[in-house]
C-alpha cells in the first residue's frame, strides 16, 4: 500500500512523544549529579545500588509483589468459577450480576480505597494490610470475570456435553475438560490483574500505614521530597520488569490477547 508521508510523520511524532520521556529517565539514571540532569555529565551505577540499599523501597517492593500475587490468586479462585457460571448456567439477573462483578472498575480507585479505609480499618478495626489485600482483590476481579468469561463463551459447549455423556460429573467435566481449555484466558487475566494491582496507586493510597506501603506509593512519597537519580534508577528497574512481563506474554499468548 502506498504510504502517506504526512501520516507517517504524524505517527512518528506520536511514538516519539510516547517513548522519549521514558528514554530520558533511562539516561538520567546513570548521571553523576546529585540532582536529575539531562544531558548527564558523567556515568555511574551508584544510583542503582542506592535503590537496592534503600530499605523502604525494597520492603515496599516485596509487599507489592505479595499483595498483587495473593489478590490475583484470590480473584482467580473466586472469579473463574463465577465467570463459568455466568457463561453457562441459567442465572436469574445474569447481566446485572455480571455488571455488578465489573463494578469495581466504575468506582474511582481513590474512592474504593477511601471507603474501605473508613469502613474496614476505622469502623471495624481490621489491620490495614487486610484492607490492602481486599482492595487489590477488588481491582483484580473484573479482569478475571471479563477475560476468562469471554474465553469460556468462545469454548465449544459440546465438548462438555460429550464428557457428561461419557460419565463425568459436572465438577469433573469442569476440572478435566473446561479448565485445560481456558488456560490461556486464565493466564491472560492473571497477567492483567497482576500488572494492574502492582501498578495501582489510588486504592492503596489510603490503605497504607507504618510498614505497610506499596512500592508505587513509596516511590511517590520519595519524589515529593527528593529529586535525585535514584528515582530514575528505580523507574528503569520497573520498566525492565514491564519488558520482561511483555516478553513472557508475547511468547505465550501474544500481546494481542491483552490489548
Amino acid at each position, binding site marked *: 500500500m502506498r504510504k*502517506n508521508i504526512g501520516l507517517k510523520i504524524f505517527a512518528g511524532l506520536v511514538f516519539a512523544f510516547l517513548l522519549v520521556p521514558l528514554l530520558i529517565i533511562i539516561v538520567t539514571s546513570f548521571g553523576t549529579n546529585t540532582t536529575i540532569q539531562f544531558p548527564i555529565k558523567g556515568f555511574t551505577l551508584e544510583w542503582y545500588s542506592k535503590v537496592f540499599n534503600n530499605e523502604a523501597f525494597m520492603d515496599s517492593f516485596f509487599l507489592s509483589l505479595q499483595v498483587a500475587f495473593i489478590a490475583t490468586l484470590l480473584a482467580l479462585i473466586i472469579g473463574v468459577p463465577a465467570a463459568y457460571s455466568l457463561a453457562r448456567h441459567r442465572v436469574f439477573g445474569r447481566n446485572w450480576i455480571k455488571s455488578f462483578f465489573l463494578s469495581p472498575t466504575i468506582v474511582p480507585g481513590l474512592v474504593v480505597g477511601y*471507603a474501605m479505609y473508613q469502613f474496614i480499618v476505622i469502623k471495624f478495626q481490621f489491620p490495614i494490610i487486610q484492607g490492602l489485600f481486599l482492595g487489590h482483590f477488588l481491582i483484580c476481579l473484573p479482569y478475571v470475570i471479563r477475560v476468562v468469561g469471554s474465553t469460556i463463551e468462545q469454548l465449544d459447549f459440546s465438548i462438555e456435553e460429550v464428557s457428561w455423556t461419557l460419565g463425568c460429573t459436572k465438577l469433573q467435566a469442569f476440572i478435566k475438560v473446561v479448565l485445560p481449555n481456558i488456560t490461556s484466558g486464565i493466564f491472560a487475566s492473571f497477567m492483567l490483574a497482576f500488572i494492574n494491582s502492582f501498578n495501582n496507586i489510588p486504592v492503596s493510597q489510603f490503605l497504607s500505614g507504618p510498614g505497610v506501603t506499596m512500592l508505587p506509593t513509596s516511590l511517590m512519597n520519595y519524589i515529593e521530597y527528593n529529586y535525585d537519580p535514584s528515582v530514575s534508577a528505580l523507574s528503569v528497574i520497573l520498566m525492565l520488569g514491564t519488558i520482561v*512481563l511483555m516478553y513472557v506474554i508475547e511468547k505465550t499468548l501474544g500481546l494481542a490477547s491483552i490489548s
Partner: protein
Amino acid sequence: MTQRRVPYLILAPGLILLILFLVLPLISTIFPTFFNGGFTFSNYTSFFLDEYNFGIFWRTIKISLIATLICVVLGVPTAYYISQSPKKWRGLLMSVTLFPLLTNSVVRSFAWITILGQDGMLNNALMNIGLLSKPLTMLYTEFAIVIGSVYLFLPLMVITLVGILENIDSEIMEAAETLGANRLIAFVKVILPLSVPGIIVGSILVFTGSLTAYTTPQLLGGNRNIMLATFLYQNATALGNWQGASVIALIMIVATLIVMKLFSWIAGRMDKRGEASA
C-alpha cells in the same frame, strides 16, 4: 432441585465479598452526607455553591475534556497508521504503545517532572538555543496536568481504536480516492465516521480516567492546581474533613456514571443517524 442452586452457590462468594467490601463501605461512607438532622442535599448544594470547591470541580472537568480531545486528535491518525502497517511492523508498534501503558503511572508522571521542571530538559533546551532568556513555569500548572493526562491515557485510546480500525477494509480508502477524494478528505469522510465507536469507547476511558486520576495531578499539579481526587485526599488527611471527602467521593462516582451514560447516548444517536442515511 439442588442442581438449580449450584450456580448461585458458585456466584455467592464473589457477590458476598463485593457487598461486604465495596457496597457496604460505600454506603456507610456516603449515606451520612445526606443527613444533617434530617434528610438533606445541603452538603452537595453548598459544595457547588462554594466558589473554591466549584473551581476545583470545573478544573477537573475542563482538564479531562481537553485531555480527551487531544487524545482523539493524536490517537485516530496514529491508530489508523498502526492498523494499516504490515503485520510484522504492527506487532512492534503495538508494543511501543503498550509499553508506557504497562509502566507505572508514577514513573510516567515523574518523566514529565524532569522535562517540564524549572531546571528541566525543555527549559534548558529552549534557553540553550536562545528562545528563552529565563525559564518558563511549566511544572505545577494545569498545562502540566493536561500533558501528563494525555501521556497517561493516549495509549489506551490508540489501542481501543486499533481494534476497531483493523476491521475496516483498506479497499474502502482506495475506493474513496478513486472516486476523486484526496487523502485528507477521504480520511475525514470515510475513516473518521467508521472509527466513531472506537472514539466513543476510548473517550469514555480517557475522560473518566482523567476525571478520577490521583497520581498525575498530585505530582504535576502542585498545591495550586488541585483536582477532585487530590481534593478528596487532602480533605480526608490534611484537613481531617471526612464529611467533605465523602461528598467528593460521591461527586466523583456520579460524574463518572454521567460521562459514561452521556457518551453511550451520543454513540447510540450516531448509530441511528448512520442507519437513517444508509
